[in-house]
């Protein structure tokens, strides 16, 4: 990575920074409420612009407000659902799973980028992850929260959904361990636990920084409590380093296993369109694809609103776009393979499935397949261009396209496969209802709500890792450009 196209490589932190200014720039997002009102929304109707106080015209308030409304929609949707039954959704015979499981898989997939960035890239000593890992991890946790709601609430009797957990009980009944849904319970709960732990451990040094910088007594006590007595000693750092490497080691297999197990929900079944051996890698690649798209879609506005250009540079976006391009190609390969083996196997059911997906005039759901191809294959192909990879507007919309495309991928796989399987007499149709969409909108709202609470109350970018990075960069500078070469000297080595 010495040079790209003969140019000297770009630094991971742009501009002149000191430890103190980094502390201030990132830490003050938490400690100084004014930072949230610095950026102002421009297009506000005149009558509102006059009457609204400035705080309310900030993007933070707008996004938090949208999130808050979404949370309320979610609560209404859940209440209606639990009081009335699954019948308020569009699920039917033969389509037992619809938006509920689509959204579950979609959210789980989004979470994957966070873990990939925090765990695998840490183990691979990729320093560029440092500026994005904190909010990507937060994104993971909130996405898994959103995802976790669905398996619980999609059951007909959510009040007994705890029977999926192996707990000692008077019935002397275990869950049925052959069911992929039980594997899901383990996979997702492990994933959630490890993600939270990893995130929290990573936050400890930053909590200490905030504790030290806080001026209000309450903040000092709160952050002091969360910092677990961190004192910056070599011993603290030593233990921290070991804990985070161990957690990274634990998380790394999870990146691959969680979505593989989620894909088993389908691959283990006998439904044509589900019973596919390539699902595990295909789902994992799709998850990383969707996850990076979401990271980019969040990073672009945050960078702008909180003046984080120096920490999240064009180089970051370029690399993230490349990851998307690579995983997108794996996913596209999956689509090609599905078509190929429908033809190659000669199995009528598989051919019927293909027919149902692609025949525009005869298959009721072909539109969803072709939208999927458009959003997931055609539009992301623009990422081949380096210019596009560094054009934030284009990148933002491509990320959005991928998020939508990955949603359609699950739509095509889950309900559309179920609409037509074995017996033509039972072929059906699936139409989601307002409660389905309300719940989806609600989880998006919940996600934004949590995300912006996080931005308000916790450091969005890893402060100490930025400082460490700065230290390395200065260290390199001191040694002169001749040293050049690979800059991935492990931070932990010092």
């Amino acid at each position, binding site marked *: 990575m010495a040079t790209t196209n003969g140019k000297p490589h770009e630094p991971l932190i742009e501009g002149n920074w000191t430890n103190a200014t980094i502390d201030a720039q990132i830490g003050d997002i938490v400690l100084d409420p004014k930072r949230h009102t610095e950026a102002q929304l421009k297009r506000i109707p005149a009558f509102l612009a006059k009457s609204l106080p400035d705080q309310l015209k900030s993007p933070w308030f707008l996004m938090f407000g949208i999130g808050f409304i979404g949370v309320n929609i979610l609560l209404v949707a859940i209440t209606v659902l639990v009081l009335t039954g699954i019948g308020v959704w569009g699920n039917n015979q033969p389509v037992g799973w619809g938006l509920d499981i689509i959204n579950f898989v979609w959210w789980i997939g989004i979470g994957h980028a966070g873990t990939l960035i925090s765990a695998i890239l840490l183990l691979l000593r990729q320093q560029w992850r440092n500026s994005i890992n904190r909010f990507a991890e937060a994104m993971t946790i909130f996405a898994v929260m959103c995802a976790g709601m669905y398996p619980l609430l999609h059951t007909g009797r959510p009040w007994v959904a705890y029977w*999926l957990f192996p707990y000692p009980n008077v019935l002397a009944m275990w*869950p049925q361990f052959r069911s992929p849904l039980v594997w899901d319970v383990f996979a997702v709960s492990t994933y959630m636990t490890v993600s939270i732990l990893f995130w929290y451990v990573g936050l400890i040094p930053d909590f200490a920084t905030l504790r030290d910088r806080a001026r209000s007594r309450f903040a000092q006590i709160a952050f002091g409590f969360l910092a677990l007595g961190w004192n910056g000693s070599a011993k603290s750092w030593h233990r921290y380093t070991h804990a985070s490497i161990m957690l990274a080691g634990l998380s790394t297999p999870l990146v691959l296993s969680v979505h593989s197990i989620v894909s088993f929900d389908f691959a283990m079944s006998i439904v044509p369109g589900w019973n596919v051996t390539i699902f595990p890698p295909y789902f994992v690649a799709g998850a990383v694809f969707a996850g990076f798209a979401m990271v980019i879609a969040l990073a672009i506005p945050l960078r702008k609103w909180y003046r984080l250009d120096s920490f999240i540079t064009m180089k970051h976006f370029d690399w993230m776009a490349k990851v998307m391009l690579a995983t997108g190609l794996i996913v596209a390969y999956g689509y090609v393979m599905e078509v190929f083996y429908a033809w190659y196997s000669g199995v009528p059911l598989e051919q019927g499935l293909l027919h149902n997906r692609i025949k525009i005039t005869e298959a*009721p759901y072909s539109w969803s397949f072709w939208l999927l191809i458009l959003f997931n294959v055609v539009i992301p192909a623009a990422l081949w261009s380096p210019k596009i990879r560094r054009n934030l507007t284009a990148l933002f919309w491509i990320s959005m396209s991928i998020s939508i495309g990955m949603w359609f991928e699950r739509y095509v796989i889950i309900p559309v496969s*179920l609409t037509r*399987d074995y017996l033509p007499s039972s072929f059906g149709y699936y139409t989601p209802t307002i409660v389905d969409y309300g719940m989806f909108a609600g989880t998006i709202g919940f996600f934004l709500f949590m995300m912006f609470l996080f931005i308000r109350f916790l450091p969005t970018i890893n402060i100490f890792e930025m400082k460490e990075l700065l230290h390395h960069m200065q260290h390199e500078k001191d040694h002169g450009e001749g040293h050049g070469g690979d800059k991935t000297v492990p931070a932990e080595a010092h």
Partner: protein
Amino acid sequence: MSGRNDTDQAFRGIEHAVHPEAFDAVKADEFPHRDSLNQIDRRSLLKFAGATAVLSGVTAGCRIQPPLSIVPLVDGQPGTVTGVDKHFASTATMGGYGFGVLVRQYEGRPVKIEGNPKHPSSLGSIDPKTLAEIAVLYDPDRAQFPTKQGDPGSWEEFFRNARARLADGGVALLTPNVSSPTLAALIEEFLQASPGAKWYQYEAVNDDNALEGAILAFGRAIAVSYDFSKADVVLSLDSDFLGTGPGAVRHSRDFATRRQADAHGSDMCRLYVVECAPTPTGVVADHRFRAKPSQIMGVAKAVAAGLGVPGSAASASSAVGGSALRALVEDLRGSAGRSIVIAGQHQPPAVHALCHAINAHLGNLGSAVKTTEPVLAKPVSNTADIMSLAAAMDQGKVKSLFILGGNPVYDAPADAKFAERLSKVPFSAHLSLHHDETSAECLWSLPAAHFLESWGDARAIDGTVSPVQPLVEPLYGDALSPLELVERLLGRARSGLEAVKEQWARTTGATGWAFDDLWKTALADGLLKGTESKEVDAQPVPGLAGGLKDTQGGGIELVVLPDPNIHDGRYANVGWLQELPKPVTNLTWDNAAHMSPETAKRLGVGQPQKALGIVPFTGWADTVKVSAQGYEIELPVYVHMGMADDTVVVHMGYGRTRAGQIGTKGDPADHGGGFDVNPFRTSLAPSIIPNAQVAKSRLGAYPLANTQYHNMLDVTVVDSDRHLIREATVAEFEEHHEHAFEGAHHGEKKPGEPDYSGRSIYQRPDKFYSKDNYQWAMTIDLGLCTGCNACVTACQAENNIPVVGKFQVMKGREMHWIRIDRYYRPRKGQAFDEKDPAISFQPLTCMQCELAPCEPVCPVAATVHSHEGINQMVYNRCVGTRYCSNNCPYKVRRFNFLHFTRKAEDVPVLKLLQNPDVTVRGRGVMEKCTYCVQRINHARIEAKKENRLIRDGEVVTACEQACPSRAIVFGSISDPESRVSKSRASKRNYILLEETLTRPRTSYLGRVYNPNPEALA
């Protein structure tokens, strides 16, 4: 000894007598031998207090018995044993004819109606409508007390007024068709007691045509009945003898005896059907021809001419001609004396008369076609009767009118103007189960007792007198049966029981012990032996065939038929029947204008609509405006493949304005209720109306709830090579045996056909489970199934299956555990023709797979396999992930998406309807067929009590029991001699979706049919 010598003193024992003071402490303690609070030390007290607090927290969540509305069985009836059910014979009545049933009674309440094996109409089988009578009994909307112009009244007041009126003359009695000897005798007595009184009979679905046809043919009223077990060749002229009419159940059984492919082979009978719209009879036919209803006479004449029936001359054209006609005629001639030509109920009398002439010419009379004395007490043309009543009402001759059942305001012919003329009658009373359209127009509305609540009798189609035996006291104490009402009008107060007994004693001449014996036997058997109608030697009027008129036709012919489920509308408030997919069309909750694809295309309408290439599952149908006889109505269109062109079929019974919560027409998206087509029916054209004007309506689309959209098997790549339905002709079957069926994997495979045998990487032992146990299995013979739906309703009644409503059906959430799939297929050796496809039925229920795909995916082990091979469903363990349903290739699992059983839990009278042996499932759980495991367990208990094994045939599933053609066989395959083992050994046996290696316990027997090679040429 104490000094007290009080004589009042009593001692409990010597200890007490000697030391009475020792007992003082015990007496002082209210709760002896328990620690009182005083004796407990502080620490123990706190421990108990804590434990109490904890336990009260624990138990607060437990349910306690509801404070109200449950009543323990304090003093049971003699012979009532808690938890043990009993069966009583009784008789349901339809169209006047009795249908023998066995009613299952549980702790004093009837819970299910089943066929009576001893009764000639039933032979143990049943039809959906009779099954659903139990739901009529427990209908929460039943009339409960007499009302006078809508205000509550009393029977005393009614009888006081009525008897005062009787003296004034001008009395008319309107009843449905009556076969009951007791009621007929009472009515006769009533007519004599009130001079000038007249008796009229009317039902919208009646035998007028058959009666008038018989009069035309034989010169007098003669009942003609058919024995299909004796017929080698059957020609049905628009007759759905397997699906509709009082004889359908018996006909199906008799017909099935001649369709046993394994046993009979080429001795199978051959069925030709000429019909305007596909019916169950048409679907099972070996040759099916389409003809407009007016063309049927032409076909009959051509056949008569071909056979040389004296006086017959072929019409100018016949809908069936050429080689087919020649082959048909030859076939009939070849089996003279062993054939049946039968005309449809709605075909005009001339067609019936000509059929009689043909049967007589062929020598069928007296063998396969029986002529007997009429079964009905007074056979009259219902249409003529209602018209003369209407005329009398119009002229003011009717001063008081007693309507005992029926609903003439709703279903009388339009030109009777019944409602209008009823207002001219000063005193009118309607005895009815519901406060319906007629009740609303009458002065008095009187609650009728259901047949399960009253004594009576009726005669079966063959004339056998059958007792109507009550199973329960009237639920609404005020209800009276027609018998009791006439009795009270006569000023007497005999109970129904006394009336029937006295009548029977009179007719049988038996007295004393002899009568008691006869009576008890009759009640136990459900029939009075030896009371069949006398056979008469009837010969057609000479030269009959020549003088018969052609049916008036032309233009688009509108055919008004009774609804296959709700009949003339009397079952409109029965959710079971509203939601029962109608045979062939699978339509629920509505009626529609059925027309052929060609006619629909010409009118510019169609269903399903195609928008942007999207075919909706349950669709919005176009609507048409149908005008005829001065009436017009907008109806949704149902494009019915296989119908005759230029014909529109509509069903009566819908568009009710006062039927109840379910039946009354309402919001189309919610529960439909259909459209009233009775105004099309006039006395001159009660069912076939020529020259109807049909045009696309501007009303727009109407939602129709269909449980299966038009799907064609083996037509597109989607459906190809699945070989769900296997059929072969007799010739193919005799030659190739099991290889005759397409898709059969045995032996050599056909080109391009996948071969799945031996492909599994897993071991496939012959018997997956041990032979020591019962291993339950079922076979369904596709060659016998007529798609009559009896199994569906029987299952619904047996297993407490809820009704979900039209809106939920449109969403695809109907709950039936057994369904009858209907497929359209190309005719053998031809390309698919939407005008005239082959149609197949396939009853489908849980296949009880040995390697059930549903089981490993359930996360909580709520669906598990029993060691007897049943895929069990543990409702209270189910959390409702629906994964099992997704993974079921047969899609037979049903999920409680909403609290569908809420009414069964909340409405007191509906609680009585539920079968106590089967759980009523709440919302959020999956359910499915369990092979009636409650019946298996019942048999197991009986067998264990007698220390023996369960005998073959001892466990009969509800569907098997109801099936009129005995297409379903259930039993244990661990017994090689069992019926099901033998059935599975048939060469026709095949497994649905065998390639999925689910190893189902339910298998199918391929359909073997018997086409005439000459007719195919």
